[in-house]
């Protein structure tokens, strides 16, 4: 099956809004190379469960492709047209299972040494798309906040080494009531800029009380979901013939209800949470990984105006000799290891914030919870500076913005 053979009824298996969207563009889809089209369909088939920012981006991308002439389309996608595909890929059900196609394509590109060519084609396309359809500017400057080191002492570990060159390092922060102050800032922003999925609070442990205007995801809150998922994985891997690719396919097909989430919940957020656990590596086991990956995906997908991420201690990875002791004690926590994880996680949160439109106006704060150290980064704060001024956390944010 090739794109040129596409018919609208072949999208009948798509969720309703996705079907409607794609059916309107069947004409242009017929002219796209097979090495490209399933990547687009992989996004489109999830349209009903996408965040508003993702929906708008996809709509604009399809409209842009539709507006191109045949020659322009050929020019834009020539890199993809030169990718050679296998007969197996051509005959796979890429319409109904585009994600599986993309996964198999990735493996095929590595094997046939076409990965670099594909990568170049993707970058060239992304550049042209960005030129034709500039990314949406945020309605207000973005703010990112990361809280690290819950329950930890540094033991001499220097913090914020990667972030200090980009902002001001404060060593006399007033830590009192710090979490509440920051949650209040986020709640105020949510009220001032009421945007759906625009203001997030991600907690790597148990979420503190928060304003209902926030979108909240917590590792603790998903504990029952993680338990069901873990049982499903154990059951799947015992089935004959189950390999890593098959397992990934099974996990990708899991829906919120399969993992015990209520059917009347927020369908978009529930799908997002399930993806964090089924597609993330290490997110099921380590809370620090969960917090970092969830923040990355929230930024990439929802493009929020405000994101507060609070890391919590993860379970300790037992060394081999302890594993051999065959104890069944509840897993201990590793506050110092978690602090190091979170320090790097904060750097990744900042990097991912920088990848969004309007980055030059955004501000970022990282704070060592219950301690006096913080780094604030923003358009009005010079990089690589230090301050011993005693200041509350909300003051730092106002200086950074």
């Amino acid at each position: 099956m090739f794109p040129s053979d596409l018919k609208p009824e072949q999208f009948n298996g798509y969720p309703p809004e996705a079907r409607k969207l794609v059916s309107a563009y069947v004409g242009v889809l017929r002219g796209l190379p097979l090495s490209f089209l399933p990547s687009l369909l992989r996004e489109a088939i999830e349209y009903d469960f996408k965040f508003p920012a993702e929906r708008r981006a996809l709509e604009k991308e399809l409209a842009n492709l539709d507006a191109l002439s045949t020659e322009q389309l050929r020019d834009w996608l020539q890199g993809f047209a030169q990718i050679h595909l296998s007969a197996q890929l051509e005959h796979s059900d890429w319409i109904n299972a585009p994600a599986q196609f993309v996964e198999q394509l990735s493996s095929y590109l590595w094997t046939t040494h076409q990965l670099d060519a594909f990568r170049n084609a993707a970058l060239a396309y992304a550049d042209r798309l960005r030129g034709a359809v500039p990314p949406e500017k945020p309605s207000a400057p973005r703010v990112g906040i990361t809280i690290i080191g819950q329950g930890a002492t540094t033991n001499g570990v220097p913090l914020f080494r990667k972030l200090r060159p980009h902002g001001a390092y404060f060593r006399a922060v007033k830590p009192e009531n710090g979490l509440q102050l920051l949650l209040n800032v986020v709640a105020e922003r949510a009220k001032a800029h009421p945007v759906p999925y625009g203001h997030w609070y991600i907690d790597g442990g148990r979420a503190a009380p928060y304003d209902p205007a926030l979108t909240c995801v917590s590792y603790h809150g998903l504990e029952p979901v993680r338990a069901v998922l873990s049982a499903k994985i154990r059951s799947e891997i015992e089935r004959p013939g189950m390999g890593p690719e098959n397992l990934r396919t099974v996990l990708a097909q899991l829906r919120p209800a399969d993992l015990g989430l209520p059917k009347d919940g927020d369908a978009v957020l529930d799908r997002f949470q399930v993806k964090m656990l089924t597609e993330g590596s290490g997110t099921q086991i380590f809370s620090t990984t969960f917090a970092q990956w969830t923040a990355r995906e929230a930024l990439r997908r929802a493009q929020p105006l405000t994101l507060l991420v609070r890391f919590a201690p993860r379970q300790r990875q037992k060394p081999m000799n302890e594993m051999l002791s065959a104890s069944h004690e509840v897993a201990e926590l590793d506050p110092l290891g978690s602090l190091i994880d979170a320090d790097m996680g904060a750097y990744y949160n900042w990097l991912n914030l920088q990848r969004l439109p309007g980055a030059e106006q955004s501000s970022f704060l990282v704070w060592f919870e219950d301690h006096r150290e913080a780094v604030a980064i923003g358009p009005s704060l010079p990089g690589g500076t230090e301050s011993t001024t005693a200041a509350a956390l909300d003051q730092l944010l106002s200086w950074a913005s």
Partner: protein
Amino acid sequence: MSSQFLPGSAKDRVRLAPYELARQLACTRREFLRCTAGIALGSFLLPSSLSARTGIAASKRKVIVITFGGGARDQETFAPEGQENIPHLMRELIPQSAFFTQVVNRGILGHYVATASLATGVYETINNFASLPPEHPTIFEYFRKDLKRPASDVWVVAPSNGFNRIGESSHRSYGPGLGARVILPKHLLTAATSGGTDYDHLLRDNYETPYYTPELGGNGFELQQLGTMLKLSVDDFKAHARTLSSPDELSVYIVRQLMRQLAPSLLWITMHDIDIAHAGTYSLYIEGIRRTDRLCADVWKTIQSEPEYAGKTTLFILPDFGRDSDDDAGGNGFQHHRTGDALSRTTWMMALGAGVREGVVFDRPMESTDLVPTLGSILGFSAPFAQGKPIQELL
């Protein structure tokens, strides 16, 4: 095919030709090594014959290869901020080594397939997660067939079931009966402790697909051979394992036993603790690097202290590949090696010991497939199917 997650700086880096990025990285490593380890640029040194330098005939030489796995980045190793994680490499090994700053892996960046490529000198395309032998002859087969060496003279110590087939290829001119014996210490420990509990983390096969363990096959080493070949009782093995903190430490323990009891001429050790990075925990990734650094030095000390090895052994240490850059929006930094960017493909190699000039750094680009023909030249066998070229600076 969203484009919004590609920052200007990342785009600019990606837009550099891969060889330019690799060269930048090599220059950074070179400058760093010159400043901190005081080693000289080696490109002006004239080569001389290896046998003339060592005075040891090829038939008496021994080679040990350690893959510094699975995948570590410059910023956590050779960059200024990473040097604290590799004190043994920096202070003890590099000053004694010839260091190659630009080893490019143009193949598939999966640990089994990349290690198989290192061992065959050909970019293998086998499924990284299946229990399959390499398609091209391995160094172990070349060595044994050409030099008529017994099976006891060539060993591989590897971390997981997935590596069990690496000892011999499916090539019709080589293959079964001509390869290396492969020891999987974790597999042995599983067998030795059957009925135990709480081994899930320790005994999982790899970190990239933690829920999946390939079937064993090939020329494996079984538990009962611990006693007959390594003179090690199962009880002693289990008791010692209880004193170790990681699978790679167990591997090095087995390596020492092999060196003392069988003294193989060709020994290949694949480290893997670093690959815990796939779990996304930076602190455990750093711990893995520090442990691997220490274990490399331990192997070097063992070489110096074992009479069968001292003075006639060349040690090679090299990663199979790197990990994704922080700047590539398509990845998630240190966690994976999936983007195929230039930084994840550009690694390094150090050689030290018999016949190697000490304290020199070589900048020119080479490929990871160059290792097999180089070892062929050192040990005196030919590798007709290997795609790489011998590294002249080591001959």
